[in-house]
């Protein structure tokens, strides 16, 4: 007992997020994490007036409650992670449909899960010798400077999303002088990146537009990753007719129609079923529901190998139930490729969302969104090139960051994955194929 106590006692009093990375000689990573945590907490703590005001405007008590639920569940994560996850999920749903149009919603929505996941992560017992799995991953990740650039970019993008109201020089909807200042060039009249046809500031609109792209990207991918995970696990684990049903009937079926035409039809179907202010959720649901097939294939392939491993056999021998075995023991071991494909998927989803907005099927104006801004500028292409150029450039940068991060994660999580050779049998649709067809989808869609 005494021995264990000695080992487990934290040798640094404040094991704050980010600090221990410093101590392990990972300064960049640590600094970034620290930065995110402090800044995002700062947003919540330092501007209570703003927060309360927006909560009130968005619907008063109910939303305050939601906020509290989110925060409590975050704290609860330390002790009862699964319960907290449940509460968080409910709060999440409530916030999704309750906090709708307020700028605070995405902050709570984005912040809460990140904080929760980070603070509530299960810390494996630190091995006495050698390094833990995650430390190894981190070290591998930090080996690549490109991956760090990607991470920094993604962090900055999310920060920009949270802080848009403070960073943006103008109100993104304000039209100071529609007749006089329309199409004002960059660097004139205080417009850094110029003004659009309503004299709205392009920079401010890009910053606020990050909201749409990042929110849709994140949540659609969360949805599709969960769906993909679920179907992949079930198909791989049970095999037989269940596998046939899921693989043939769902996956192959949905993959057989190129994504953009499919989305066109889906959007036409469901777009007008809800009032326009809820359009963003419709888009999240549709993008999530049509984007999970690649992940499902990956997971299925993974499960096929994992279920033959010794620890699963051991679990069976111990008489663990199928559910416990599958979701508690097999699932975490299939997580790595999902994490990678989800990160890459966010980039792809941002592209698809931009394409939808470009076709005027996205979030309705005047809410700024990058794809719609490119479309807006199309009729002024030669007269006012900045309207289309800058939002497009931001899309490219954002997607590049996610791709860099995804690549870095892939290399870090599973060194075997780098250029692993495709398996020989054609029926064995494993990750290589799944991945390439997925990236292909994102391409053809945009």
């Amino acid at each position, binding site marked *: 007992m005494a021995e264990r106590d000695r080992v487990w006692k934290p040798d640094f009093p404040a094991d704050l997020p980010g600090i221990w990375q410093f101590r392990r000689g990972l300064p960049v990573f640590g600094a970034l994490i620290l930065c995110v945590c402090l800044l995002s907490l700062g947003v919540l703590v330092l501007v209570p007036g703003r927060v309360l005001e927006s909560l009130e405007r968005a619907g008063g008590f109910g939303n305050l409650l939601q906020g509290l639920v989110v925060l409590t569940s975050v704290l609860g994560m330390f002790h009862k992670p699964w319960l907290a996850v449940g509460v968080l999920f409910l709060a999440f749903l409530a916030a999704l449909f309750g906090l709708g149009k307020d700028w605070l919603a995405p902050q709570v929505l984005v912040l809460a899960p990140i904080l929760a996941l980070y603070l509530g992560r299960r810390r494996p017992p630190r091995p006495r010798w050698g390094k833990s799995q995650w430390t190894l991953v981190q070290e591998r990740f930090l080996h690549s400077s490109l991956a760090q650039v990607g991470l920094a970019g993604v962090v900055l993008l999310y920060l920009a999303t949270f802080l848009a109201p403070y960073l943006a020089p103008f109100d993104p909807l304000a039209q100071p002088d529609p007749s006089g200042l329309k199409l004002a060039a960059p660097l004139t009249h205080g417009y850094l990146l110029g003004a659009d046809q309503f004299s709205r500031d392009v920079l401010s609109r890009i910053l606020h537009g990050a909201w749409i792209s990042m929110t849709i990207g994140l949540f659609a991918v969360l949805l599709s990753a969960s769906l993909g995970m679920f179907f992949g696990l079930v198909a791989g684990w049970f095999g037989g007719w269940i596998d046939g049903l899921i693989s043939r009937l769902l996956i192959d079926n949905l993959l057989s129609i190129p994504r953009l035409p499919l989305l066109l039809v889906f959007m036409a179907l469901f777009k007008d079923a809800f009032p326009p202010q809820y359009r963003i959720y419709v888009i999240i649901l549709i993008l999530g529901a049509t984007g999970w097939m690649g992940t499902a294939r990956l997971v299925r392939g993974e499960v096929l190998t994992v279920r033959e491993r010794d620890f699963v056999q051991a679990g069976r021998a111990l008489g663990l139930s199928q559910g416990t075995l599958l979701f508690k023991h097999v699932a975490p071991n299939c997580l790595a490729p999902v994490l990678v494909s989800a990160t890459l998927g966010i980039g792809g989803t941002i592209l698809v969302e931009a394409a939808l907005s470009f076709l005027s099927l996205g979030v309705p104006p005047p809410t700024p969104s990058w794809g719609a801004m490119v479309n807006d500028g199309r009729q002024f292409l030669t007269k006012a090139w900045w309207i289309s150029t800058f939002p497009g450039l931001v899309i490219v940068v954002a997607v590049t960051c996610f791709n860099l991060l995804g690549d870095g994660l892939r290399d870090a999580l599973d060194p075997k994955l780098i250029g*692993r050779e495709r398996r020989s049998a054609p029926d064995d649709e494993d990750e290589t194929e799944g991945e390439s067809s997925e990236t292909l989808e994102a391409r053809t869609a945009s």
Partner: protein
Amino acid sequence: MLTYLFRRLLVSLPLLLLIALELNLLVHMVPGDPTAVFIDPRFPPEYIEQIKVSLGLDRPLHVQIAKWFANILQLDFGISFFHQRPVSEMILDALPNTLLLSAVSMVLIFLLGTSVGIYSAVRQYSWKDQVVTVSSLFFYSMPSFWLSLMLILLAAVVAPHWPSSGMVGETIMLKEAAIAEALQMGEAPEVTIGFFERLFDLLQHLLLPAIALGVAPAAGVARYTRSAMLEVVRQDYIRTARAKGVPGRRVIVKHALRNALIPVITLLGLYLPFLISGAVLVETIFAWPGMGRLIVEGVFQRDYPVILGTGLLLAVMVVIGNLVADILYSAVDPRIRYG
């Protein structure tokens, strides 16, 4: 091999049928009335019914779907509501244009992609490799519609006379018109169109859309090639070749390249549906009269037969594409045999 092919196709049939059924149901669920395009003010309501009758929309849904399936079996895709032409004819009009554009961009994708990939693989971890990797990732992340607009903008600034719309230049168009007139009148045409004139004109029109369509996938292929190449270079037989004293360039070209291209070639099959569907947005922006525009217009006009016809065609192409990928794979990799 043949039995394998046959078996695969047989397995795909139910899938295709299912997709066709779903498409039918989906299309009829979509809000928006296809007869709306025929409506005029003071158009008596009973005429709308009449038009519905002539479009076959008056019948119950299951009858409409059954009829559609019966027609499909005879390869009859129906008649477009909006254009009142057979859908098969419309597809045949659009398909060659899309194939041309896609073929050119495919060449671009694979030539550019593999060469850039090999280049950066050979110089792994050098600053050149880093630059190429980052920039290919940058292009890979580029939305094609934005790239199209930027290309148009660039062309407008650099070369204002460069064509950025359609697929035929005005000189050719006028000459074709003159020739058609002469033929109609039974006279000998005054003008002729030289082969190279036409070819040059076509290439001019192809350039911008092909770039817009090809750059991002080419970047993808480059990344893919690079990692495949790196994988191969680590293999024992390459080390053996090097140890044996085979010159570096020869090792790369003769031994490594051939094996590295195997996975890349299989991508070809996966790109096949993309070849047919074209790029919806690029075609719209460059006014390229291809399948992409057909699909988008079909959806926007609620032109059921067009949506169904093109949708089914796409699904068939996906199935064939997967098949081709497998066959190509076995063709380049002798270890794989299908029986």
